[in-house]
């Protein structure tokens, strides 16, 4: 195994805002690596630096051994990108969008046409190749963008929020494509997402990123194992009283939040009745109680004390504030 991407203390600041803060990681060739975090956590900023769109403030990175600051063209040839926002020419047909891309990457005509046909078939758009992109649905556009990103045979593929805004069915379909790609073409994939299921399903390894910093990095399974057991969520009007009512050694961790408390313990099923008995004895009302195996959401929660959705909301507010201040 060789290293496809090596990132060392990569930092980007916009004025006083540090969007990416000494981000470091290494990705093996053929790996699907996920950057998971809420909107504005620094995922896209990191990706933009790696794809030479943004100049890093400090730090360094190489892609297939090519330095992102010293040889931008070399990096650009080695990578394919699917941006978070659409980047197709809607007035052109699917085929023409591919052709434009192929010409930009100076792929000879015959190779270009052969690969275009092959890739359009792969993403099941071959029958629509001569239709104007304007008539395509969100999922079709996404598939076309992925096909386009692969046209110049990149060794590393960047997928920035590949399934954002798509319906569950299309999302599932795209996930299958991405899995097939990684397997058949043996390319390295870096994807950013704020969907837990997506990261869980696709990625060999995940870096959880928040406020520009990587706070945890491992395989999805090990990240979840680190939680240490099952997760019990109790909804109650008296959450504050619950910790005192449960002075038991088998509760490994507890987190009190608004209207709910989240406990981590092993073999939760066996302890459920005891929890209920103890809370009843203290006359603590239970609105609902649930048990589930830990998800990446729980992992995120355990590291940040917040769920990704909450982070998203508060981040949007602070971004809005930020922009308002900049405008005045």
């Amino acid at each position, binding site marked *: 195994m060789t290293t496809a991407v090596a990132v060392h203390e990569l930092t980007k600041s916009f004025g006083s805002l540090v969007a990416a803060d000494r981000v470091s990681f290494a990705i093996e060739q053929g790996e699907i690596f996920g950057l998971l975090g809420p909107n504005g956590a620094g995922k896209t900023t990191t990706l933009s630096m790696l794809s030479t769109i943004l100049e890093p403030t400090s730090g360094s990175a190489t892609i297939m051994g090519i330095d992102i600051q010293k040889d931008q063209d070399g990096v650009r040839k080695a990578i394919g990108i699917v941006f978070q926002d659409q980047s*197709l*020419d809607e007035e052109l047909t699917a085929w023409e969008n591919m052709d434009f891309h192929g010409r930009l*990457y100076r792929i000879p005509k015959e190779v270009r046409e052969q690969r275009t046909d092959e890739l359009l078939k792969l993403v099941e758009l071959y029958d629509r190749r001569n239709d*104007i992109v304007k008539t395509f649905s969100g999922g079709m556009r996404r598939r076309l963008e992925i096909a386009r990103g692969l046209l110049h045979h990149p060794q590393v593929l960047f997928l920035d929020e590949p399934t954002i805004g798509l319906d569950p069915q299309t999302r599932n379909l795209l996930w299958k494509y991405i899995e097939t790609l990684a397997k058949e073409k043996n390319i390295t994939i870096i994807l950013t997402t704020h969907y837990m299921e997506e990261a869980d399903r696709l990625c060999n390894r995940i870096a959880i990123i928040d406020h520009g910093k990587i706070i945890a990095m491992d395989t999805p399974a090990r990240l979840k194992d680190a939680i240490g057991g099952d997760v019990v969520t109790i909804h109650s009007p008296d959450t504050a009283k619950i910790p005192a009512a449960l002075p038991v050694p088998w509760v490994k961790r507890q987190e009190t939040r608004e209207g709910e408390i989240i406990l981590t313990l092993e073999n939760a099923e066996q302890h459920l009745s005891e929890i209920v008995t103890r809370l009843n004895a203290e006359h603590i009302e239970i609105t609902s109680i649930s048990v589930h195996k830990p998800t990446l959401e729980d992992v995120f929660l355990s590291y940040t004390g917040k769920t990704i959705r909450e982070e998203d909301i508060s981040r949007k507010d602070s971004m809005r504030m930020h922009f308002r201040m900049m405008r005045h």
Partner: protein
Amino acid sequence: MDIVYTIWLRSMKRYVRSRSRIVGSIAMPLFLLVFLGFGLNSVVSAASLGQQYILFLIPGMVAMTVLFTSVFSGIQIIWDKQFGFLKETLVAPVTRLEIMFGQTAGGATTAVIQGIIIMVLAVLLGLRIQNPAGFFIALAFMILVGIAFTAFGIAVASRMEDMTGFQLIMNFVVFPLFGLSGALFPISSLPAWLKPVTLLDPLTYGVEGIRYGLTGASQINPLVSAAVIGGFAVAMTLVGAYLFRKVSV
């Protein structure tokens, strides 16, 4: 060159497909030509022009078409910015200069084609081109005006985030340039104090050059016109390339 061609090709494909834009941008100069041309033909004394007013107006309208189409083509980069397509070009292993040249070539070609359409329609209104050389002289001036103002549009677009500033540029830069250029009236009929301003307007030389080609007569020596509008096209291309280099998405 292959990259410049690629980007030019995209412009052409988009142009051919946007029928409403083609018709829309021809309608205005054509209406002006008919209304002003015929309406004022008898009012404007032929003596000061040495020819019919409508024949005087035709080169002006050709220039106007090229001017407006090219500025608009250049400014369209803002749409590429907003619809994300610019990113696709900027992360490709190509230089900014190649992209800028491709856009300029595409915009200028579009503008010149539009100008030629007006010219052809003008033949129906009485335009008689003196000789083939005259047509090519006019064409050369149209190309220079097209390059200059597409580059101008790109320069402006490089500094704008969205289309809100477009109207401002149109009303306070492009329209005055057009009004002062002598497209609608002979420069000599202006009051003495306004004449120097007209001579500062680079479009004046474009209009005069096209007029020389189409009617065989102009108030400015065509060689001077060629030098000024040519120099202006080079200068605008440099400014456009410089500003476009700094575009970030």
